[in-house]
């Protein structure tokens, strides 16, 4: 079936500019190890790894409308699983990645059964509790996790037969390769029928149920997928740091990921990565120069982001690009729906998407 009617229009294709921007970003990221020093490159690895974690938070918070503070739990599960695999089974990065994804997705699926029945702030509360309990587990289950000493892992070998990656630049390239694949995968999922269903649930759960969607199952699917993604980030953390300790499972990591998503603009995957860059640079780079006061700066960034960036960086971008012109007929009698003002409902978390960022993931800032 093809559209032939004159009045029927196609959805706007992703702009050439966006494609160019992505290509440029990939090139810049790819040549980075030959340009900058090893401290910066290891920081860049960190941004990519935590950026994946932020994307998993964003999938739940920005796409499905479930604000989470517990993704570090699955990040930690993935990291410990990868570390144990590396110590006892194989140095092969791909195998560690697969194990980490499988284990963390399984844990997310089991814990998710209880969690996805709740919404809004209750969901936030419950995931926060899960994150913190996971921290306790990491600390106390010392026969597996090594307790507060953490677990070290040998250097990664991306594929069997290759050499160990010892230089920061090579490690970065391995992280980047996995990151790009997963970024493409997540972007595809957001554009898929499943992704549309999640956005629909975020906007109006009752409508989706009436349209024949088993909402809880879809959310459990999203939770499991996001858990697996966080686990993949955990495996890459082991690749890049060769070490995991309970502090990587802690509340601060989840909080960083959530604020990165908020700064980047809910729903935008490239925004989540950009937000992560802001957060990591603030805490580690600038904070490092200010006598280790990174957390203080991070807290200030939180407060500023909440007061000053109600729609995140993405909102800033669209506000400059197209000042609310889309759809001039917003003055219907049923108020409360105009995109720029977020409705004060529990699900309001979702309302951050701007009026014209439907291209969402895809463009790199």
């Amino acid at each position: 079936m093809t559209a032939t009617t004159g009045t029927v229009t196609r959805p706007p294709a992703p702009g050439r500019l966006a494609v160019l921007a992505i290509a440029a970003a990939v090139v810049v990221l790819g040549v980075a190890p030959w340009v900058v020093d090893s401290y910066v490159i290891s920081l860049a690895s960190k941004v990519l790894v935590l950026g994946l974690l932020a994307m998993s938070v964003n999938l739940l918070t920005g796409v499905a409308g479930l604000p989470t503070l517990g993704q570090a739990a699955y990040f930690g599960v993935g990291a410990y699983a990868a570390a144990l695999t590396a110590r006892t089974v194989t140095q092969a990065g791909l195998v560690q990645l697969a194990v980490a994804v499988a284990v963390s997705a399984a844990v997310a699926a089991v814990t998710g059964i209880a969690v996805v029945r709740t919404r809004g702030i209750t969901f936030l509360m419950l995931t926060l509790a899960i994150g913190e309990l996971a921290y306790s587990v990491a600390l106390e289950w010392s026969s597996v996790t090594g307790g507060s000493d953490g677990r070290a892992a040998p250097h990664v070998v991306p594929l069997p037969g290759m050499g160990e990656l010892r230089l920061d630049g090579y490690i970065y390239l391995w992280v980047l390769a996995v990151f790009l694949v997963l970024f493409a995968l997540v972007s595809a999922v957001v554009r898929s029928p499943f992704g549309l269903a999640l956005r629909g649930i975020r906007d109006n759960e009752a409508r989706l149920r009436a349209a024949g969607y088993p909402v809880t199952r879809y959310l459990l699917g999203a939770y499991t997928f996001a858990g697996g993604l966080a686990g993949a980030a955990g495996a890459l953390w082991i690749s890049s740091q060769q070490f995991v300790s309970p502090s990587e499972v802690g509340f601060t990591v989840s909080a960083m990921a959530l604020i990165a998503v908020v700064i980047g603009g809910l729903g935008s995957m490239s925004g989540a990565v950009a937000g992560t860059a802001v957060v990591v640079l603030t805490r580690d780079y600038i904070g490092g120069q200010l006598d280790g006061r990174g957390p203080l700066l991070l807290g200030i960034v939180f407060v500023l982001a909440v007061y000053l960036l109600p729609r995140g960086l993405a909102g800033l971008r669209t506000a400059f690009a197209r000042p609310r012109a889309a759809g001039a007929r917003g003055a219907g009698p049923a108020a409360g729906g105009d995109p720029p003002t977020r409705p004060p409902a529990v699900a309001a978390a979702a309302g951050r998407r701007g009026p014209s960022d439907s291209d969402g993931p895809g463009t790199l800032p």
Partner: protein
Amino acid sequence: MPVLGWLDTYLVSMVDGVAFGLLYFTLAVGLSLVFGMMDVLNLAHGTLYLGGAYVAYLLSDGGWTGLAVGLGAGVALGLAGGALLAALTQPLARRGHLDQALLTLGLSIIGADLFLLAAGGETLPAEAPAGLRGSVELAGHAYPAYRLVFIGIAAALALAVYLVFERSSLGALVRATVADRDMVRVLGVDTRKVLFGVFAAGAVLAVLGGVLGAPILGPGPGVDAHVLVMSLVVVVVGGLGSVRGALLGALLVGQVDTLGRAVAPEYAAFLLFGAMFAVLAVRPRGLVSVVRTAP
């Protein structure tokens, strides 16, 4: 008599469980009511406890005066902190709950780092008043006297909160606001005043919990997050917006946590997980549910 033997072995842990349960209650009740009334999830609640614990550490002089001064300072600090938090979150009320949670989260991170800057990375020993430093005999076991006194004081505090909330006209107003905020507003009550009051009272309780609890759970990095999460679990288990629920949840969580630590130290956190999910599976809105949760 295996049961009696078991009881005897873990008696100390069980009494500890009561002490910690009541400690979590002082935080959970404020958290629960503020959330029940205004849907504000105050993630800086643990910071208030930490502040109280540092106050106790600074002012404790080994005597009763130090404790009294500490309590006075705690009340002042709680009022100031509660007022500040309420004032900061109010402008965001129309913007949705996530923003309020994020704001208090940011404040708690700032608070934690400032405490770290001021007090260093060690967990500080806060001394109980000299007269209570010893132990007493408890069914054949030595038990720290201060903990027993703490249980007494905290139980009295819990009872007072319960009576004010359930029996007084002020409490009725708070309960009504929890149940139907708009209706109370329509009746001509300034709900913002009620919110401010509950916010401040909750903050004072949390700080007092810190002042009194410092000899049991001393001030140090990470303590704020720990007590915050424990009280969150209490609220989730107990049910939102209810004093009775908070108390029930607190005693349950206290038992599971300390007893679990004593019986199976490696798996204590799993036990807590399990208890939380078990309660949620049977009663999704907690043991005592009063708030209609928005769909």
